């Protein structure tokens, strides 16, 4: 696999048009299986085909149960400078319910090791909206979390997708998705809590101390080009998106014959406008009307002024200096509101 990925790097070396690489992210799937020499090979190959900025954010995704002092040392020595750890919760009952491989003891242990390590930039994932949890247990999780002073936090609401274990449970009536009211209350608890601890709520699910925004995540919302490597990885060249095949075997075979097994998703201007609306409205930076006008040639106010006025009046958004931003209440409805502004034929 690593060989194939390196081959992909080689074949795709002009995808980013020689741009300087600002961030690298090892994630999605099982980077924990990656051994030192493999990590070295990949980073070396990237370096050979691209110029990596000296300031680049290089993140490695990990679960609490695959963190150890030696592993941390190895990652740091090989140039990783940021960790993203899937803590989810410190509640053992919930961890078990969610079928997580780790328990709370491992979570605490891993965090202590990280604190003692050379990593000063790390992000912790926390999950809420769990039907069997309560507001009280949620607050407790948050308290424990900030105790470790993570510079960055991502917090996601549990969603139940059709073809998953939870989906089947739900179908069988074994599980009820948390009510909208419960989930939104938890969201307010989260934002209020982290605000008090000086985290900036810079995107619906992302919070950071000053200077610790994730460069990598932010680039997705700013329509910056990126190159994804490996099975089911996706890339974006600033115009179109492409998806690698998800089947490992087929991926490997294709690369053996020097082919990129990717499917192209051609984005029309409307698609790009819609994507910008959808992603930018989730962020604290908001949607820049001048960017829309100048880059995508779309005058939002001309098309949707009454709609936006109505939102403004009901406290869902603010419009200032050509920037449209959602309020906290608005962000909870970001999908609905973005879709209302969408262009479709």
């Amino acid at each position: 696999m690593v060989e194939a990925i390196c081959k992909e790097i080689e074949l795709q070396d002009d995808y980013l048009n020689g741009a300087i690489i600002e961030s690298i992210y090892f994630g999605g799937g099982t980077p924990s299986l990656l051994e030192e020499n493999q990590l070295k090979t990949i980073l070396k190959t990237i370096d050979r085909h691209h110029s990596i900025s000296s300031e680049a954010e290089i993140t490695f995704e990990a679960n609490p149960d695959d963190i150890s002092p030696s592993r941390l040392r190895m990652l740091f020595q090989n140039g990783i400078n940021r960790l993203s750890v899937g803590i989810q919760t410190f509640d053992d009952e919930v961890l078990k319910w969610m079928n997580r491989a780790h328990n709370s003891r491992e979570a605490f242990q891993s965090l202590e090791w990280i604190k003692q390590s050379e990593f000063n930039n790390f992000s912790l994932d926390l999950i809420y909206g769990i039907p069997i949890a309560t507001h009280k247990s949620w607050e407790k999780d948050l308290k424990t979390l900030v105790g470790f002073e993570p510079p960055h936090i991502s917090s996601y609401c549990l969603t139940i997708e059709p073809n998953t274990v939870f989906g089947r449970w739900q179908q069988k009536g074994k599980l009820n998705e948390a009510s909208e009211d419960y989930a939104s209350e938890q969201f307010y608890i989260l934002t209020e809590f982290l605000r008090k601890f000086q985290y900036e709520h810079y995107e619906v699910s992302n919070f950071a101390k000053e200077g610790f925004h994730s460069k990598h995540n932010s680039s997705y919302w700013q329509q910056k080009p990126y190159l994804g490597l490996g099975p089911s990885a996706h890339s974006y060249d600033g115009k179109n998106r492409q998806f690698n095949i998800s089947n490992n075997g087929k991926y490997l075979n294709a690369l053996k014959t020097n082919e990129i097994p990717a499917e192209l998703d051609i984005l029309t201007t409307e698609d790009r406008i819609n994507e910008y609306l959808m992603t930018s409205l989730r962020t604290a930076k908001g949607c820049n009307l001048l960017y829309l006008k100048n880059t995508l040639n779309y005058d939002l106010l001309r098309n949707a002024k009454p709609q936006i006025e109505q939102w403004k009046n009901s406290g869902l958004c603010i419009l200032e200096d050509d920037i449209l931003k959602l309020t906290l209440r608005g962000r909870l409805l970001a999908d609905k509101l973005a879709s209302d502004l969408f262009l479709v034929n």
Partner: protein
Amino acid sequence: MKNIRNFCIIAHIDHGKSTLADRLLDSTQTVNEREKMEQLLDNMDLERERGITIKSHAIQMEYKLNGEEYTYNLIDTPGHVDFSYEVSRSIAACEGALLIVDAAQGIQAQTISNLYLAIEHDLEIIPVLNKIDLPGAMVEEVSDQIIELIGCKKEDILHASAKEGIGIAEILEAIAHRIPAPTGDPNAPLQAMVFDSVFNPYRGIEVYFRVFNGEISKGDKIKFINTGKTYEADEIGILKLTQQPKQTISTGNVGYLISGIKVAKEVKVGDTVTHVDNPGKAVQGFENVKPMVYAGIYPVETSEFEELRASMEKLQLNDASLVWEPETSAALGFGFRCGFLGMLHMEIVQERLEREFDMTVITTVPSVQFHAFKKDGEMVKVSAPSELPDLGSIDYLEEPYIRAQIITKEDFVGPVISLCMDKRGEIKNQVYLTQSRVELTFHLPLAEIVFDFFDKLKTISKGYASLDYELVGYHTSNLVKLDILLNGDKVDALSAIVHRDKAYEWGKKLCEKLKELIPRQQFEIAVQAAIGTKVIARESVKALRKNVLAKCYGGDISRKRKLLEKQKKGKKRMRQVGNVEIPQEAFMAVLKLD
């Protein structure tokens, strides 16, 4: 001319008209092996999907008998009550009719009503007992019913199975022998009656006609008597499976005409075509249609009003029973008040507008036409709740009543009667057609039967009931106007005129239904039903509090954009009234109140 036979096939729905037409076309080799398919003449997608005939279809066959060559013009007709106007127009172009009766089902309501139409026009009737292959065929019993109904001899009844191809040769032969050739004078001035038309985007309007006197040739200068417009007959021909151009169509025959007419309004079904020089008189066309139900049709996009008008004009060419005039709604803007022959007709019109003309429309709550008598003696016809005069000025209201003929099995008489009573009906007559088959006659308010009555009737009779009805007049009734308010604003398109005794239940159910159908928005929506200023029912659509996916990185973006685009497209089928988005189905919700 002596070898021309013009005939139609009439029957109750599903008795086998279209299947028999297939067999006749096969036997006369009008269609070849490759073109063959079941219910071939039902060529509209909608007809094929629903398995019913909506339009009459004309087709010409050649038939040889004892060395003589015959020209057969066949018109297949729909069976459902809502399309009886199609049937009556076909009948006017014919000298004879094959009356098909399903041997397992016997005489049904539309067997009778279509038969009467044919008799009124002096058509020669050839009774055909179809589906004799079925194990449940009751040949003797149904033959007796037929004899009693039309007073024919037993040996006049042909036995057939359209499905198995039994008895087809006998039918073809009987047509030649029993149906009279058309009469008419080939040397007289031209009189050709338009019985149908269709809009063809490439060639303009195609007109289907039957020549009663004289003849028409390619290149003739012709005139439509009713509209007074003149054209040149660019192309004329006969209707085979496809059109076949001819030089001349002579007296008694059926054909099509293309003369570059682009404006839908210039063609009226029932009009007479004649020559500019030596013109003939108009032949008697058809009676004007009497719509049973009225509803507003509005474009979903207000800007598409003119486009909708053009589409309706084109559709009207092919559906002469559709009538309409412009109207304005406070909630929906500019649209049309349309008259339909029934709910199925209304549904078909809406679907055809969408499919054939790509128009997304909203249909408002259907209503019958009421009569409002004002204190000053004036009578106002009210076919939409908004047309109701100020209550203070009204003396009394009348609603239309129908006489309904229901044929069912003895076992279901009880349930049928109680259904009709529940619908404010009054039983007028009860006749045993045979030992186990009963014909019931009721007087009922039309408003009670146009919506879901027929479905209910079918359910309670396990399918063994057929219904036919006609208007019989107006009666005073205790009616009220029920309004629906969304967030305090009256939505005129959702108002209805209902009987006072039923207003409360109607309001309650409608509010519940709207609560289900109106998508949640970022604010709460109050749904209220009111009579005058008195609110009689209320519900609320809770505010949407959370609608955001947690993750939005890389590949999520495409997936999610597509999802939200779908959502937005769904919204295009909604109409914004005030700040509330109302989906298209909500306007029809009243039809599905239980």
